[in-house]
C-alpha cells in the first residue's frame, strides 16, 4: 500500500493511492493537484548518507569511505511533494540528489544485517538538495549546505516494505524541466540498507519514524529559479519540487 499525508479542506488527512490520484480515509477521491502534500511520515531523527555510491564519490573526487559517512538534518528541512525550495540569491551551484529513503518501523538496537529488513516500515523518495557554495570542512557536509529550511523534498508516498520486493535493485532518476539528468540504481550503493541499519543500531537506538536518506549516484547538475525538478524511483514514487527565488517567496513584484 502507498500512503500519504496531505492537507485538504482545512485538515491534515491520511490518504492512499487511487488510480494515479488519491483517496482520503473518508472515501473522497481527489487528483494529486487538489491537495497540499506533506512529508509522508512525521520524521523522527533524519539521517543522510554522503558518498554512498562509488560513482558519485568519484564524481566529487573522493575515495569511497571505509565507514558510512552519516550526517543529520533538522526537522524543518523537510518539504512535501509539489513543494517549493528556495535558491538563495548569489549562489553559484545548487544541485539535487535523488535518494531512496528508508523509514524505520520498530525500535532497533544491535540489529544484524540478516534481520535488518524486519525493522523497515517502508520507503519513500527524497531530494537532498545541496548548495555547494556554503560547503565548509567542519562537520562536512555542514548544516548550512544540507539542513536548510524546506530544502529536502520528500514523498509523495510511504510505500509499505512488503510491497517492495528488492529495495537494493531500484532504478532511479532525476528530471530537470522534463529532461533526464541523473540515472542510477540502488544496487550501486556502497553501504546497503541492511549494513546501514546494522551500523547505526550498533551504537544508538533507532525508533519508529526515524528515516535514512541513503545517498545519491552520479549525475549532478545545477538547478535554477523556476526549474521543475522531479526525483523518482521505480515502484516508490515520483517527487516533484520547484525552485523559487526570493521574489516568489515574498510575493513581491
Amino acid at each position: 500500500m502507498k500512503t500519504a499525508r496531505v492537507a485538504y479542506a482545512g485538515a491534515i488527512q491520511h490518504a492512499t493511492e487511487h488510480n494515479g490520484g488519491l483517496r482520503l480515509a473518508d472515501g473522497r477521491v481527489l487528483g494529486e493537484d487538489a491537495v497540499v502534500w506533506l512529508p509522508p511520515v512525521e520524521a523522527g531523527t533524519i539521517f543522510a548518507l554522503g558518498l554512498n555510491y562509488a560513482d558519485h564519490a568519484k564524481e566529487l573526487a573522493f575515495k569511497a569511505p571505509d565507514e558510512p559517512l552519516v550526517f543529520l538534518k533538522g526537522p524543518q528541512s523537510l518539504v512535501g511533494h509539489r513543494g517549493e525550495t528556495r535558491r538563495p540569491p548569489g549562489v553559484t551551484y545548487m544541485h539535487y540528489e535523488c535518494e531512496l529513503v528508508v523509514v524505520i518501523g520498530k525500535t532497533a538496537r544491535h540489529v544484524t544485517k540478516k534481520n535488518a529488513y524486519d525493522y523497515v516500515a517502508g520507503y519513500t523518495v527524497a531530494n537532498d538538495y545541496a548548495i555547494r557554495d556554503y560547503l565548509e570542512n567542519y562537520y562536512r557536509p555542514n548544516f548550512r549546505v544540507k539542513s536548510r529550511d524546506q530544502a529536502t523534498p520528500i514523498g509523495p508516498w510511504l510505500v509499505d516494505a512488503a510491497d517492495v520486493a528488492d529495495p537494493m535493485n531500484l532504478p532511479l532518476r532525476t528530471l530537470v524541466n522534463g529532461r533526464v539528468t541523473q540515472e542510477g540504481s540502488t544496487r550501486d550503493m556502497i553501504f546497503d540498507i541492511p549494513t546501514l541499519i546494522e551500523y547505526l543500531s550498533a551504537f544508538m537506538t533507532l525508533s519508529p519514524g526515524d528515516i535514512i536518506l541513503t545517498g545519491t549516484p552520479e549525475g549532478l547538475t545545477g538547478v535554477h529559479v523556476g526549474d521543475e525538478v522531479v526525483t523518482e524511483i521505480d515502484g516508490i514514487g515520483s517527487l516533484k519540487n520547484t525552485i523559487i527565488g526570493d521574489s516568489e517567496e515574498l510575493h513581491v513584484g
Partner: protein
Amino acid sequence: MINAVYGVALNFRAELEALGDQLNRDPYKKPPVAPVLYLRPRNTWNVSGAAIRMPADANALKMAGTIGIMVGRGYVAVNDVSIPHASYYRPAIRQRCRDGFCVIGSEVTERVPDEIRTFVNGELRCRASIADLVRPIGRLIADIGGFLTLQPGDILLIGEPPDAPLAKAGDRVRVEMDGVPPIENEVVVE
C-alpha cells in the same frame, strides 16, 4: 515538548585558539565561517538523575556542561556528553549520538546565566563564561536563523567549554547555572 536540539562546536574562543594554524591546513583549509552545528537526536535526550552509560568502546566521556537556549522560553542547564574526538572534519555521529548523551534540565530561567559550572564528584572542574563565546547568544541565533529557522520547542546549546572535564564509570557529574536547580547524573558501565 522538545522538537530539535542543536549544538555548536568551536564557539568558545579558546577552542579556536587551541587549534591555531591547524584551521588553515588540511583538512580544514580555512577557519569556519558559519556556526559549526551538530544535532542531538532524540535517542540522546536524557534527564537529571538518570544514568549516563559509558559505551564499551570508550575509556572516558567528555562532560560539556553548557547552556541550552530554549527558543521562546529561556535557558536550561545541559550536559552535552561525547566520546572525546580531535577531528572536526566529519560529523561526529558515532562520538555524539549515543543513547542518553544529552542531559537536559527540566527547569527554565528567563534570565541569561553568566556562566555554567561543571563538577565531577563534587569538585569544580570547569567554569565557562558566556563572555568567552565566539558568537554571543544573539549573534548565534541570528547567524543560524539565516538558513535554519529555530522554533519553539528547539533548544540551541551555546558551545562546549574548552576545558570540559572527562569522566569515567562511577563518577557523578553535576552541571549548574544560576536560576535553575543543578542537573546531576552518574556515569555507569553500559
